Structures are given as C-alpha cells and as structure tokens.
C-alpha cells in the first residue's frame, strides 16, 4: 500500500476546526486545508449518494468573491466576462468565464446581478489572487470599483432534493419562489440580508448561502443547517464527493476541462459565450479559432472494460495512436460505472465511438457517451 501525506502552511476557512472535530480527512486543495471526506458519516460514496437522494452540506468558503460596483460596472463586466451580463435581471445569476485575449480561460465564474451596476462574481479557490488581479487590471479603465470580498464570507452549499426543505426551516424567505440560478437576500439563521442563491456544483437542486466569516457565526450556521437537515439524513460532504458529483453532471473544473491553454469552443461552452454582444476580451481570438476549426473537443467516456480512467491518462484510437487525454475521470458513485471527460480529435468524438485509455499497463476500452452523464429527475 502506498500512502501520501501533506503538510505546510495552508489557508483555512472559518469552519476548519469544525471539520477537524467531525473527524474529516483533510487535504491540500489549491493551498487550502479542506475536508475531502468525513469517515464518520461513511465517507465519499455515502456523501455522494446522500446529495443525490437527500441533502448534503458543503463548506465552499475557499471560493472567492469579487464585487464590481459603479456607474460603469455593467460595461466592465461585459468586457471581462464572455456571457451577456446585460441579459441579467436583478436577482439573477449566470455561468460565464473570464477569458484571456487568446480566447482561453482565466477562470469560470458565476455572475450575480445584485442591483443596478452592482455585480458579484464568484470564482474558484485555486485562482482567487490571479482572478482578482486580472479583474482589477482590466476594469481599471471603467468607472467602477472591484473589491475582493472573499474573506468576508463563509459560503455554505446545501444540495440535494431535500435542500429546499432543509433551508426553509432557517429562513422566512419563500424558497419555492427562487428559480434555478436566481437569488434573494433575506434573514437566514437570524442573520439579516443574507445572500441565498439557488446555485451549486452538484447537478442537484440546492442553495448556496453567504454568511459572515467569523468562526462563531460560521459554526452556528453550519450546526443549524445540520439540525434542520437531520430528518432528511443530512451529511457533511467534502471535496471528494464534490468532485464526483460535478463530474456526473459534466461540470467543468478549472485546470482540467478549462485552463489557460484551452479555448471556449474546445471546452464545448459555446452556449455561455455570447459572441453577438459588445466586444469582450478573447472575442477576436475566438472568431479566428472558430474559422480555423477545432483540433480537439471535450467528449464524455464510459469504461467498457474493467478499469478506471483517471485524470491525465492517455487516450488511444483503435489503431493504437495516442489521440488525447483524460481531463477528469473517476468511478461514479451514483451511476455505478467509471466515467471520464477527455480531449479527443473531433473525428473520435462521435457517440458510441470506442477509444482506449492507458491505465498503467493496460489499455481499457471506453466508449463515447452523451453528456451530462447524469441529469436530475424533473420536478413534477
């Protein structure tokens, strides 16, 4: 058995002590000391299944938040973000990305329209400083402020079919009126003006709440959510389940499906990129890239043979030529099969096409399947 240890000065969220008291297995994620799973509750698989069938609670405070406000805040957001922020109504959010001039990714982002000329961008943990510098530099010519407010918030995700029932116990806001990717401010756990967003990274219904980041408040809110969710079997969930959940839902992870060497078309994120809006960073390069045609596309794979295709493993065609690589791959706890996302040539990306993934000394046969791998059942 091989094993690994991690040490070093890692950043901590306000809930770090609480995770450790719960006996969480901790890992270094992008420089943050975060729970990967909680053995006491059964660990990753139980957490994953818990979110699909009941409700799970995640500490996602390591993610960053950039608040852009001012008379030209919309213009600034339109310049740096590829989706069309002018389409957002107050109380609405959308998925987007910040692009480099090459049409490649600085980061993906959820843009929230808080009010007239008032936008909140929620960004990845591993890219917080890079993103903030990028935003600050590129909005400097607009009349607005860009503030890094990540440290002010403990961000808690409550995800699963029972998420609404759980959170409803803790707020007077009628959660049934908040549509998917919309948000409201209201009192949660006695905390006034708390952002309640119907967003998440699990491919289930759910909410993310943003509460003050002091330890006592953060711990109190977590504890109250756990109590509210107890009748639904609520489980604390770590980054391990977060990854398998988002993979089943074919949601991108920075550094894997998207990065500074991958463009929007390759990543198949066309529908979040509004080429017809006012100019934005990366637009010209994307025009060129579209005209030139794609040399690789993101495809969904399912293992046919025994074996688990994992991040970074090489992909071969039937003739034995190396044609691509896995961006993210894992055993999928809900689907009970091994799945992966991979960059392959367009010619290899047709549904049912067979490719071979190098898993140590074996070539494991996989087939291209439609994505997302999992779609949550429609609400009736």
């Amino acid at each position: 058995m091989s094993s690994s240890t991690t040490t070093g000065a890692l950043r901590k969220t306000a809930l770090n002590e609480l995770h450790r008291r719960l006996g969480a297995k901790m890992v270094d994620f992008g420089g943050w000391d975060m729970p990967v799973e909680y053995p006491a509750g059964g660990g990753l698989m139980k957490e994953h299944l818990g979110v699909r069938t009941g409700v799970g609670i995640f500490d996602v405070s390591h993610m960053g938040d950039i608040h852009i406000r001012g008379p030209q805040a919309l213009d600034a957001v339109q310049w740096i973000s590829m989706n069309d922020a002018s389409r957002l109504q107050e109380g609405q959010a959308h998925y987007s990305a910040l692009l480099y001039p090459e049409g490649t990714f600085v980061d993906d982002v959820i843009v929230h329209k808080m009010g007239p000329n008032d936008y909140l961008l929620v960004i990845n943990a591993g890219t917080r400083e890079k993103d903030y510098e990028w935003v600050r530099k590129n909005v400097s010519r607009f009349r607005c402020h860009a503030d890094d407010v990540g440290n002010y918030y403990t961000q808690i995700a409550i995800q699963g079919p029972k998420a609404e029932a759980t959170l409803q116990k803790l707020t007077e806001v009628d959660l049934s009126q908040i549509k998917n990717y919309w948000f409201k401010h209201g009192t949660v756990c006695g905390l006034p003006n708390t952002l309640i967003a119907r967003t998440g990274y699990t491919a289930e219904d759910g909410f993310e709440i943003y509460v003050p980041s002091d330890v006592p408040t953060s711990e109190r809110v977590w504890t109250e959510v756990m109590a509210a969710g107890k009748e639904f079997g609520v489980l604390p969930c770590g980054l391990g389940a977060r990854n398998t959940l988002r993979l089943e839902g074919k949601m991108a992870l920075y550094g894997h499906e998207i990065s500074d060497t991958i463009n929007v078309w390759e990543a198949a994120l066309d529908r979040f990129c509004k080429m017809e809006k006012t100019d934005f960073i990366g637009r010209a390069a994307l025009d060129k890239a579209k005209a030139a045609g794609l040399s690789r596309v993101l495809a969904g794979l399912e293992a046919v043979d025994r074996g688990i295709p994992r991040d970074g493993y090489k992909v071969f065609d039937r003739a034995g030529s190396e044609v691509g690589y896995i961006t993210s791959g894992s055993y999928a706890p809900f689907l009970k099969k091994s799945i992966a996302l991979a960059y392959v040539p367009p010619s290899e990306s047709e549904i049912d096409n067979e490719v071979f993934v190098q898993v140590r000394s074996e070539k494991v046969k996989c087939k291209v399947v439609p994505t997302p791998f999992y779609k949550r059942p429609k609400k009736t």
Partner: protein
Amino acid sequence: MAYPKEYKYTKEHEWIQVQGSTGAVGITDHAQESLGDIVFVELPKVGAEVQAGKSFGTVESVKAVSELYAPVSGKVTAINEELNQSPETVNKDAHKAWMIKLALNNPKDLDALLSAEQYEAYIAEEK
C-alpha cells in the same frame, strides 16, 4: 480492530497468513480505513512471480490508486476473483479478504516482517 496474531505485516500495510510454504496476502484494516470505499482491485495473473517489496497490483478507492507491495517473494498460485465483482469486501473485513496466494520462494523473507504487536505500534506512531 484486532490484528490477527498469526499474521505478519509490512510497513506498507499488507498482511500475510502463512500455511506451510504458501501464504495468503491482503491489506490491513488500517489500510482499508485510510483508503475509504474500495471500488477496484487489480491483481496479477496466476503463475506470476512477485518480489518482496515490489508492487504486485493496485487497489483503488474513488479518490486514489494505491500500489500493493508483496511481503515476500514467490509465485502466485491463486487470486481472489470475488474481489473483481465485490471490491467492497475488502472494506467489510480486510483481514479475511485475501487478494493473492503465494508459494513462498524463501521462508526467511518472513523474518523481515512485523508481528501484529509491532504493526500496531507502528500505525499508532504514524498517527
């Protein structure tokens, strides 16, 4: 969890149960606990030669791939096919879930291994 006194152990968290000149090999309870839910076990073919201290296969949880290291040198005489269908058997009872059986090349290899007591002390220290 008690570590069977008749087994011998490696620092890489494998156990071997010796009967005469053959041994059954698996991973310890400590190992399965660290790994979490096991979803895949990759074992060598019957007839393969394994070397003491060298990898003879892998065990995978959702999150990680871990090498399996042979406690002694020998020839694989049997593999536990049940683990192909039900890898979670290892989590349920790691000390019963043998992975391979070996014909030992040299019983003296066992002298380098830890007793149950020594292994328990070793993992207590690791924490």
